[in-house]
């Protein structure tokens, strides 16, 4: 049968119908993405793959560079006038895809639209909410007022795409998807959006930031990792994101391909459920009886569980070196990270001693819970951690589950020992400490994802001071201090930072980013 097919194909080839599948034209490029883009409405769904795609068509006032440092976007400059007032100056040479100029009215319109997108499953209002009043000084100058000092305003605004008032006023999400309202200022125009299948972009030749090297870009959604690699190997796409761990070495050795990697803003860590006085679920003595006290409330036990894991082995073997052992919530070149913090050294004897001091000389039993389809090799990491714990006398079982089940249960605190991941979109450690380790209080937006319910008033105080300190240097020192307090107390167990990978066919250079975004603006033909 295969022979028949082969003959048929050979015949078609002879007829000139079937050219080799590659042969991308010079200024056209195809890129394989791992996750679907759920909408082309920039304010509909706050989701990394969407945010990454939006940056091609739309732009925020402030952008983030490859290391997530803030750089001018549509705003040429900005400054805090006082604790509650910010002044933003827009660039004067920016035009939307239809030729209309960008003015302050478009920014005002955007801020109004963001909280009012119908049916939004995850809104961007979080970023615009602090702004209580907007004043237009002139068509290119805006004054934002906040109710309380909000130092993260520039970082928040880097997540908000500015849309055209002219096209957006009556537009619904559908109009952005169809391309009718998707008129941005970005380097590319939306040509076609097919949900769960592809996004096609065409160059915006009038782009204020200078022309990009590509006329046309096709993003294909290739969720299956093997299919993504096959598409690259067969020349159907010229670049893929998130190369499967097992293929990285092979592609790296092949001179026809380049593999680019970069440590990301995503930390894989463990939350220890400290919400109850009694032992949390799935934490028992070795015979299966519940423990009287919650062992995770003892800093010595937390530390034992941290030094009892050999991070180097996980990085080397499980992650095949595509990870970096973690000491805090972000790699130490980010804002607010402390260079003093080093990844916990593996210390078998030390861990045993700490457990004995805490009153568990014979250890206890726990179940490690984690997702199995969310982070790179997540289920294997859980297995590896369990192996290490058996050496320090802790009976560790492993139970992993799909993320659709896992995160609901984890948020209800149905687990004791939870492996989780956190990507810091803002690129500064203060916001991560606030979400993951501040005392749980969702009304105030503190500790919203603190599934361990770690609570330390001294730490809270330093962090809250930091969050209202306008001076960048002073604030950074305070965030560093808070991070050191939390990490020295083993408030959570950082395991590793994921390394993101991209592969291109030769002849391309890609500037890898820490935020795991795949941006065509980073892809250049090699000279």
């Amino acid at each position, binding site marked *: 049968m295969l022979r028949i097919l082969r003959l048929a194909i050979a015949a078609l080839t002879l007829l000139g119908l079937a050219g080799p599948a590659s042969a991308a034209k010079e200024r056209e490029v195809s890129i394989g993405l791992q996750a679907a883009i759920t909408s082309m409405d920039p304010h509909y769904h706050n989701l990394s793959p969407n945010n990454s795609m939006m940056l091609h068509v739309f732009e925020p006032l402030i952008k983030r560079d490859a290391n997530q440092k803030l750089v001018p976007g549509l705003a040429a400059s900005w400054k805090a006038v006082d604790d509650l007032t910010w002044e933003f100056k827009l660039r004067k040479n920016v035009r939307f895809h239809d030729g209309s100029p960008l003015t302050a009215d478009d920014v005002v319109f955007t801020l109004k639209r963001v909280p009012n997108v119908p049916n939004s499953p995850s809104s961007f209002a979080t970023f615009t909410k602090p702004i209580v009043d907007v004043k237009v000084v002139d068509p290119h100058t805006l004054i934002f007022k906040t109710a309380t000092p909000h130092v993260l305003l520039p970082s928040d605004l880097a997540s908000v795409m500015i849309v055209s008032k002219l096209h957006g006023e009556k537009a619904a999400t559908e109009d952005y998807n169809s391309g009718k309202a998707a008129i941005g200022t970005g380097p590319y125009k939306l040509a076609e959006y097919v949900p*769960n299948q592809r996004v096609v972009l065409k160059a915006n030749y009038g782009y204020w930031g200078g022309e990009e090297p590509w006329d046309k870009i096709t993003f294909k959604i290739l969720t299956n990792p093997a299919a993504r690699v096959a598409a690259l190997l067969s020349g159907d796409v010229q670049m893929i994101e998130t190369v499967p761990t097992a293929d990285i070495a092979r592609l790296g050795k092949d001179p026809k391909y380049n593999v680019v990697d970069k440590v990301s803003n995503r930390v894989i860590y463990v939350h220890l459920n400290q919400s109850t006085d009694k032992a949390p679920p799935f934490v028992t003595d070795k015979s299966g009886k519940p423990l009287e006290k919650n062992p995770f409330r003892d800093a010595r036990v937390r530390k034992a569980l941290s030094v009892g894991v050999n991070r180097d082995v996980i990085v080397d073997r499980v992650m095949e070196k595509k990870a970096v052992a973690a000491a805090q919530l972000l790699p130490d070149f980010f804002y607010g990270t402390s260079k003093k913090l080093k990844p916990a050294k593996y210390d078998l004897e030390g861990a045993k001693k700490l457990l004995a001091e805490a009153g568990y000389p014979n250890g206890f039993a726990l179940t490690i819970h984690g997702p199995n389809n969310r982070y790179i090799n997540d289920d294997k990491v859980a297995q590896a951690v369990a192996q290490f714990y058996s050496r320090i006398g802790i009976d560790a079982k492993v139970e992993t589950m799909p993320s659709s089940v896992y995160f609901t249960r984890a948020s209800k605190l149905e687990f004791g020992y939870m492996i989780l991941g956190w990507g810091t979109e803002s690129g500064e450690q203060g916001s991560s400490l606030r979400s993951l380790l501040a005392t749980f209080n969702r009304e105030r937006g503190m500790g919203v994802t603190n599934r361990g319910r770690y609570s330390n008033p001294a730490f809270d105080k330093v962090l809250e001071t930091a969050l209202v300190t306008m001076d960048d240097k002073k604030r950074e020192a305070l965030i560093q201090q808070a991070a050191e307090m939390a990490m020295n107390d083993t408030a959570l167990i950082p395991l590793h930072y994921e390394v993101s990978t991209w592969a291109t066919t030769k002849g391309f250079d890609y500037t890898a980013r820490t935020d795991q975004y795949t941006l065509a603006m980073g892809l250049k033909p090699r000279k």
Partner: protein
Amino acid sequence: MLAYAIRRFGQSFFVLVLMSFLVFVGVYAIGNPVELLVNPQADDAERIRATAALGLDKAFLEQYWVFLKGAASGDLGRSFVYNVPALSLILDKLPATIELAFVAMVIAIALGIPLGLVAGLKPDSILGRGIMAGSILGFSLPTFWVGLVLIMVFSVQLGWLPSNGRGETVTVAGVPLSFLTADGLLHLAMPAVNLALFKLSLLIRLTRAGTREAVLQDYVKFARAKGLTQGRVIGVHVLKNILIPIVTVIGLELGSVIAFAIVTESIFAWPGTGKLLIDSINQLDRPVIVAYLLVIVTLFIFINFVVDVLYSMLDPRVRLGGAASH
């Protein structure tokens, strides 16, 4: 016939309602979509807003009631993730899936029945044994692996066929079809063959077993004794009599190929509904899951109906809607 059809569709309606309720309960039990959709940094206000926006703040039975009311007017709800009507999301993708399924079934039938006949008529010949050996391979090799091997050979090594996606389409009566263009056929070849392989093996085995049984029957011997040509004996007396189980299986398999071509669709990034279903389950996008299953159940009901009609055409003893216990 008409009374039969009406009764059948009455029953089907209850199946649909029951199924939608079960899926509702099932998805509700798995987890809370808001946990997956909302940004983890969001505070309480945002969580409450998102829950309300998706209609998840209502009591479970009330949510189901809202769904039923909508369904009665043809509205199966909006996708949580894509914010478009779930039904239109599925109907946009359905032609691609049905096309793939039909081409795969055509391959399976066109090759499977003749090969099965050969294997059944000459079970001890090298050809007959070879066909059976091949069908064991077709049965036992995982679709996933075969798909990847096809890609490695035809896309990566030889560069003849594109590794993913659907080719150029032409619109016929409002439905985009890709098997009418050369580019479309090239894209279709590998996924269709991959999907057909298992069904092909199944049909070979089924046809062979039926044939071996039929050739021993008296009426076949009698037909031979009458001096009928080999072609007529096989084509009319053997084939027509063994077709009933084959038609049943083809009907069932066509349904399952349409509904569960998920593995093939994800390997070849075929833009069909299978891929959509898996993504929707992972994201707990309940309206899409419910709508998808409703569409598929409807499809199954329709296919079964067609199969029943075909029975009555193939076997004069079968009467639709008669007093027969069937």
